[in-house]
């Protein structure tokens, strides 16, 4: 099988990457790319598969990050417990947000998720006893830290691979097909027995929990959280961009999107100084103009040009 060969090559590359790129900065970029692979893929379960375009995912990321930070500042436990506590804290919040927002459809749903994200940010900003308010929380490192980036790389690699693997599993399951049916037409989905409210909540629960895990990792890696870093709307937008640029509703899409956008934004920042956002914006416009269905859609069309049978990634 050709695809098995590709996968093994990729696996070997990912495992060996910290030894191929030994500079701390390169390892930092690798970690960021994998973090965004996880974030884009987690978002894609709700936004891509189920078609519910959330612009509030920074809330789930931030809650995950704060879970780790608060554990470190208020207890004697390691902030790594945040990876377990994050999803547990996020789950009820996500379900309440979903219960409210899923009454709305299309752009109204998206606006409601922006509002929900802002509410969480303002709560974090003002609940100073717990979150440190605008000052934020400095996390004292525990276990390994500071000296080497390699352990962080392997941890985020596990998070990213697990998230993508879960997406792949979902895309071939009943859940995945039900989410796609909801995306295409909710009334039709209901008419063939899909409990649309229930399945949207399941998608949100999975998506938010995975996002919280990524947030908790972030807190452990950067050792500092404040509302402007882990809860801004800009972060929500960035997560969505990964998935849209890569290809909505496909497993490979957010992976490709995260690799392209994160690597290029780092390169642009180094090469073009103040103009980096301008160039980054131009890249986005070009991709959206010429590949409206994302990188995966673009690749599929190029493959079709060369006579290969087009294959849907989501199926």
């Amino acid at each position, binding site marked *: 099988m050709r695809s098995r060969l590709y996968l093994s090559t990729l696996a070997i590359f990912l495992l060996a990457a910290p030894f191929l790129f030994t500079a701390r900065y390169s390892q930092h970029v690798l970690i960021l790319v994998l973090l965004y692979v996880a974030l884009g893929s987690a978002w894609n379960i709700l936004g891509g598969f189920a078609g519910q375009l959330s612009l509030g995912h920074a809330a789930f990321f931030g809650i995950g990050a704060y879970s780790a930070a608060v554990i470190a500042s208020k207890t004697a436990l390691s902030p790594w417990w945040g990876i377990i506590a994050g999803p547990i804290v996020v789950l009820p919040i996500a379900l309440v947000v979903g219960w409210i927002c899923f009454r709305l459809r299309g752009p109204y749903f998206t606006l409601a998720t922006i509002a929900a994200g802002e509410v969480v940010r303002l709560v974090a900003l003002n609940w100073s006893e717990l979150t440190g308010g605008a000052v934020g929380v400095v996390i004292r490192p525990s276990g390994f830290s500071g000296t080497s980036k390699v352990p962080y790389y392997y941890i985020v690699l596990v998070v990213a691979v697990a998230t993508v693997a879960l997406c792949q599993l979902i895309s071939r399951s009943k859940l995945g097909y039900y989410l796609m049916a909801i995306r*295409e037409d909710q*009334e*039709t989905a209901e*008419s063939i027995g899909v409990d649309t409210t229930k399945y949207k909540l399941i998608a949100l629960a999975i998506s938010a929990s995975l996002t919280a895990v990524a947030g908790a990792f972030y807190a452990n890696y950067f050792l500092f959280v404040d509302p402007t870093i882990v809860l801004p709307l800009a972060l929500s937008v960035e997560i969505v961009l990964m998935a849209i640029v890569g290809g909505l509703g496909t497993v490979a899409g957010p992976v490709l999107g995260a690799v392209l956008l994160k690597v290029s934004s780092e390169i642009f920042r180094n090469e073009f100084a103040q103009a980096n956002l301008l160039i980054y914006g131009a890249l986005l416009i070009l991709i959206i103009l010429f590949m409206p269905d994302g990188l995966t859609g673009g690749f599929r069309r190029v493959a079709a040009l060369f006579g290969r049978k087009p294959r849907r990634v989501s199926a």
Partner: protein
Amino acid sequence: MFLLEVKDLTKRFGGVVAVDSLSFSVSAGETVSIIGPNGAGKTTVFDLITGVHNATAGEIIFDGSNLIGKKSHQIAKAGIGRTFQLVKPLRGLSVFENVLVGAFARTGDRGEARRIADDILEFTDLSSLRDAQAEGLPIGLRKRLELARSLATGPKLILLDEVMSGLNPSESKQAIELIKRLRDERGISAVAGVEHVMQVVMSISDRVIVLNHGKKLAEGRPEEVASNPEVVAAYLGKPG
């Protein structure tokens, strides 16, 4: 014992009475047509039975249980399938995947669902289009795909909203054939909403219900209904 029993069903939208204390029943294995001019309330009746709208008054008993207050997906699971007047294919999915989604109503197992989907594609003669995108299909095939997707859920009763509209003569002949086979080969009851095309009504129906302004105007065997002067008047206007 009827499969479906509708009693005094009424639906008001503000001041408009779309369905006015309508009662009818469908037996197992029976094909019933609801005919009536545009705006007679056929689609509203289907929407009430499938829980898209809530009835203002009345009862809907299916297979021994009351459907009033149930949600669309619960009604689908209970065994009522439907097609829509304006077809709604799941655009981004292939023909096979459209039917597969329906099959998941019966089983959570992917292999089993695929077997059901392939069986339904065979039954509806769509196997050759298995991997085509639903989006690009012509209207006749899209209507058939809707029926296939609904059949995959394993319904006891299927509601066909304007099955024939927009079809050319050869397509409607195929559709008639398929509706007959639903009853004869699978034992599935059907209620077909038809605006006109009396030939269709005659050839598929065991019984015909005529709806006008939300009320039942007549009911009976196709040839009885077709010669009923009130029915003729509703369609063509009163003489003089």
